[in-house]
C-alpha cells in the first residue's frame, strides 16, 4: 500500500465536504522482548496502523481517528471530524500549513538492519543487557523489566494546501532496572539506550550502567538541609530542560502560561547557557524531515549566551504571532492525537570543561545522578522542587552516596545560577529527546535531614 497516496485520497474525500483537510497516517511493526534470568519472560510482536483526520472550516477545527482502513470506516472518520468542527469555535489564526520545499539530506533515521533483525537476535540482545548487569558486581542480585524494543514504520502526511510527504523511521532500544543489595541496604537503578541505528546500539552498556548506579547508591543517606552547589549529570539535567521546553513553547507564551512570557530579547540565563532545538540532528531520536503537520523541521537557537531569542512554534502559533515562522515543532503522540507544540532534540550547548573538571570545581556540594517527579516542575510559575539521588562532593571529589533529598530553586534563578557547563553532551529519550552535558548550578536548596 502506498500510504502517501492513501493519505492524499482521504484528503480529497474530505475536501468534498467543503473543508480544509489533513490526513496523518502512521504504520509500524513493534517487537518487545522481556527476559528474566536468561528466559524469555514476555514477548510481544505486532503490526499497527492508524489514521488521523483533521479538518478546518471557518477557523473551526475537528479531529477524528481510526485504526480501521476500510472504506466505511474512513467515511465515518471524515464525517465525525466534520461534525466536530461544527461544534468548535472559530479562530482566525487556525489553518493548515502550505507546502514548503523539503531539503534533500540524509537524516539517518532509518536503518534497514533494524528491520531485518531476526527475533532470535533481539532475544539475544535482551539477554546481553541482563547478563551485563548481573556480571557487573556480585551485589547486583536481580534485574527487572529487562527489555529490548524495536520498531520501524512509515509516517505519511497530506493536506488540502498541497503538503504531501512521507518518511520511514526505525528505532531500537533497551532498558533494565538493576537491583543491588548488601546486608544493610538495597537500591534500584535504571539503565537504557535508544537510537535509530543498530550499529550504534550497545546492549551491554545498558546493563553495566544500571548496575553501576544501583551498586553506587548502596548505603545512601540524606545530607543536612542546606543551600549548596549542585552538579547535575546529563540525565538529571534533563529535569531542567523538560520544563524549559514547555516554557519556551509559543503556545504557553501566547496564553500566559510561561514564566518566560514577554522576555524575548532579555537575559534569562547565565551567559554560558545556550539552548537549542534541532529537529534535523542526524540520527537523533526526535529527528525527522518534517513535523507532524508537514512543516520542514529546523535547527532553532532559543537561548543564545543567556539571552532569550525566540519561542518554539508550530503553524498555529506562528500564524498568530504574525511575524514568526513555524520552527517545525508540531508533534503527535500517534494517530489518535492532534498535533501539539513540543520540542524535538532539545539541548544545552556543551562547553569546554570535562565532567571531572566541573565536579572538581566544587568544594562542598551535591552531585545529582538521578531525579524523580520531574513532571511536577511548573512551566507557568517556574517552581522547581524534585527528589534527587547522587553523591556528596567533598573537595572536588565524589564521596558517600546521598538519597531521600530534594533539590529546589525557582527556574528563573536556576538558569542564572549555572556556573559551569561540561563538554559531555548526552541525549536522553524523554519528551522528545532532551540533551545536556554535566552542569553546575549554585545556590540550590537541598532538603534533607534536620
Amino acid at each position, binding site marked *: 500500500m502506498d500510504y502517501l497516496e492513501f493519505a492524499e485520497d482521504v484528503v480529497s474525500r474530505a475536501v468534498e465536504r467543503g473543508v480544509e483537510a489533513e490526513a496523518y497516517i502512521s504504520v509500524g511493526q*513493534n517487537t518487545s522482548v522481556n527476559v528474566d534470568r536468561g*528466559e*524469555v*519472560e*514476555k*514477548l*510481544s510482536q*505486532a*503490526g*499497527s496502523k492508524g489514521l488521523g483526520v483533521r479538518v478546518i472550516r471557518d477557523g473551526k*477545527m475537528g479531529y*477524528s*481517528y481510526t*485504526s*480501521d482502513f476500510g472504506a466505511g470506516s474512513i467515511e465515518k*472518520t471524515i464525517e465525525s*471530524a466534520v461534525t466536530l*468542527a461544527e*461544534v*468548535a*469555535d*472559530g*479562530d482566525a489564526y487556525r489553518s493548515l500549513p502550505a507546502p514548503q520545499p523539503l531539503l534533500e539530506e540524509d537524516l539517518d533515521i532509518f536503518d534497514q538492519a533494524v528491520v531485518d533483525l531476526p527475533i532470535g537476535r533481539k532475544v539475544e540482545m535482551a539477554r546481553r543487557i541482563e547478563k551485563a548487569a548481573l556480571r557487573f558486581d556480585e551485589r547486583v542480585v*536481580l534485574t*527487572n*523489566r529487562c527489555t529490548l524494543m524495536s520498531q520501524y514504520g512509515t509516517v505519511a502526511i497530506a493536506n488540502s494546501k498541497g503538503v504531501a510527504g512521507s518518511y520511514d523511521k526505525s528505532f531500537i532500544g533497551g532498558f533494565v*532496572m538493576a*537491583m543491588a543489595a548488601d546486608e544493610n541496604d*538495597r537500591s*534500584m537503578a535504571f539503565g537504557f539506550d535508544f537510537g535509530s541505528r543498530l550499529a550504534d546500539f550497545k546492549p551491554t552498556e545498558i546493563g553495566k550502567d544500571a548496575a553501576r548506579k544501583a551498586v553506587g547508591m548502596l548505603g545512601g543517606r*540524606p545530607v543536612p*538541609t542546606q543551600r549548596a552547589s549542585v552538579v547535575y549529570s546529563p540525565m538529571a539535567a534533563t529535569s531542567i530542560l523538560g520544563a524549559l521546553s514547555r516554557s519556551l513553547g509559543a503556545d504557553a507564551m501566547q*496564553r*500566559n*502560561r510561561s514564566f518566560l512570557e514577554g522576555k524575548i530579547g532579555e537575559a534569562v540565563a547565565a551567559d554560558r547557557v545556550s539552548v537549542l532545538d534541532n529537529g534535523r540532528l542526524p540520527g537523533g531520536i526526535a529527528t525527522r524531515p518534517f513535523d507532524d503537520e508537514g512543516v520542514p523541521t529546523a535547527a532553532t537557537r532559543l537561548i543564545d549566551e543567556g539571552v532569550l531569542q525566540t519561542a518554539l512554534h508550530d503553524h498555529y502559533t506562528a500564524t498568530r504571532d504574525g511575524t514568526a515562522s513555524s520552527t517545525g515543532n508540531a508533534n503527535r503522540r500517534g494517530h*489518535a*492525537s*492532534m498535533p501539539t507544540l513540543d520540542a524535538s532534540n532539545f539541548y544545552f550547548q556543551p562547553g569546554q570543561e570535562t565532567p571531572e573538571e566541573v565536579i572538581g570545581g566544587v568544594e562542598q556540594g551535591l552531585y545529582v545522578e538521578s531525579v*524523580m*517527579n520531574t513532571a*511536577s516542575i*511548573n512551566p*507557568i*510559575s*517556574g517552581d522547581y*522542587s524534585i*527528589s534527587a*539521588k547522587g553523591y556528596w562532593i567533598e573537595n572536588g571529589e565524589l564521596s558517600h552516596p546521598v*538519597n*531521600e*533529598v*530534594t533539590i*529546589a*530553586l*525557582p527556574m528563573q534563578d536556576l538558569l542564572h545560577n549555572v556556573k559551569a557547563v561540561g563538554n559531555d553532551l548526552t541525549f536522553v529519550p524523554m519528551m522528545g529527546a532532551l540533551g545536556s552535558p554535566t552542569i553546575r548550578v549554585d545556590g540550590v536548596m*537541598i*532538603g*534533607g*535531614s*534536620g
Partner: protein
Amino acid sequence: MLPIESIRRVLDAGLTKGADLAEVYLENKESLSLILDEGRLEKATQGNDIGGGVRVFYGNNAAYAYTDDLTEASLLEAAGVAAAAAENANNAQVCADLTKRESPVVSQIERPFEEMSTQDKAAILRQMDEVTRGHSPHIVSVQCGYTETRRRVWVYNSEGVWAEDDRAFIEFQGQVAAQKGEVRQSSATGVGGQVGLEFFDDRDPVAMMPEAADTALLMLDARPAPAGEMPVVITNGWGGVLFHEACGHCMEADFITKGASAYTGLVGEKVGPDFLTAYDDGTIPGQRGTMRFDDEGAPTNRTVLIENGILKEYMWDLTEARRAGRASTGNGRRQTFRDMPMPRMTNTYIDAGPHDPEEIIGSVKKGLYAKKLGGGQVEIGRGDYVFTVTEGWLIEDGKLTAPVRGATLVGNGPETLRLIDMIGTDMSLDPGRGMCGKGQWARVSVGQPTVRVPKLTVGGTE
C-alpha cells in the same frame, strides 16, 4: 464481538505448539474529548480504537501477538505468532468449554453518553470557563477539558474463562493560571468517575473551578515552603496518593515474586500502626479503578492489603499468580490491546482510623499541612517516593497560619507507613481524576482519612 466458535478456534491455534494456556483479549474503545482554551472550544477529537491479541503461556513465560484487524483470520495469524514462541513446550492441553461468567459487581450505565449532544457537553465547559474568569481579575488563563470513554473488553482463555466488561468514564479537568506582576501560579482540578450521564445528577464540574482558582490566587501571595524534616499532616481523599505511591506499588506482585520489592516476604509482619487498615477494592461502584472482571477475565475483589498494621496480601495478576501457584486477585490490567497485562492497583485506600481530623492538625506545634497534592513517583526496590504539594499550609501551634508554595515531600514508603501516628475518622475517596503510570496508564482511585506523619522531609526553598 466474534462468534464463540471463532474464539474457540483461535484458542486451539494458540495451544498447538504445546503451550499450557491460551488467551484471547478483544477490545473496543470509543472516546470523545473536548478542550476549551481562552474561552474557545478549540480542540474536539473523536475516535475508535479496536483490536485484539492472543497470549500464550508456557511455564512461567508468555508470548503475545496483537492485531487491529478483528477478523478470525487475523487472530489466527496472531495465535500462530504467539504459539511459535512456545515451540519447546510439550504440553498437550485442550481448550475447555467456554462458559460466560457473571460478576456481582454493578457497573450498569444508566444513561449512555449519546443522550446528550456534543454542544451541550461543550456548554458545560463554557460555564466552567466563565465562572473562573469572573472569579478574579488576576486569572490570566483558563483551560477546561471533557473526556468520555467507553471501553468494552472480552476475555477468553483455554481454561474456560469467558468474561466481558463494559466500562464508561467521564472526566472533567480544569487548569487555572493567575498572575500578579511577575509572579504566576497555577492550579489544576478534576472530577470524574466510571459512570454514564447520571454523573450530572450528583456532581457539578462547574463548582470545582472557583476552588481551583482560589488555590492559584492563594499561591500568588504564598511564601516559599520551608525545607527540612518536620511533622506533616496530609489531607483526606486525594492524599491517598501517598499510600498509592509509597506503599501500593511495592505490593504489586510483579516486584514481589522477583524479590525486588521492599515488601517481599513480609506477609504476616507488622508494617504499620495497629490502627492502620488498607484495601485495594476493584468492586466499588462508580470508581475509576472498578472492573467487573479484570483485563485477564478474573473477577475483581476487595483485597485487604494491611489489617491492623499487619501486611496481609499483595495484588496479583495471572502471570504472577501462575508463578506463585495461586489465584489472581483480579489486578491484571492493560492500557490497550497492544499491551501485556501486569499487576496494577484499582481503588486503593487507607481505611478510617480513630483520630478526630481537627485534633490531628491541632496536635502539631510546627509543621506542614498538605491540603492539595499533585502527582508522585516511587522507586519500587527501596520504596523511596516523592510527591508534590500543590497547596500547602504552615501549621504553627496547632493552627493553619500561612499558605506556602513549591513544597515537595520525600521519604521511604515502608518507613513512612511505620511512622504514621494519627489516622483520622474522615476517610474519603478522591473526586475521580487518578491516573497511574507504570509503563502503561491505568485509571485508579485513591483515598485516605487525614493522616499525620511525625517526621517527613519537605523540599522547599527556605
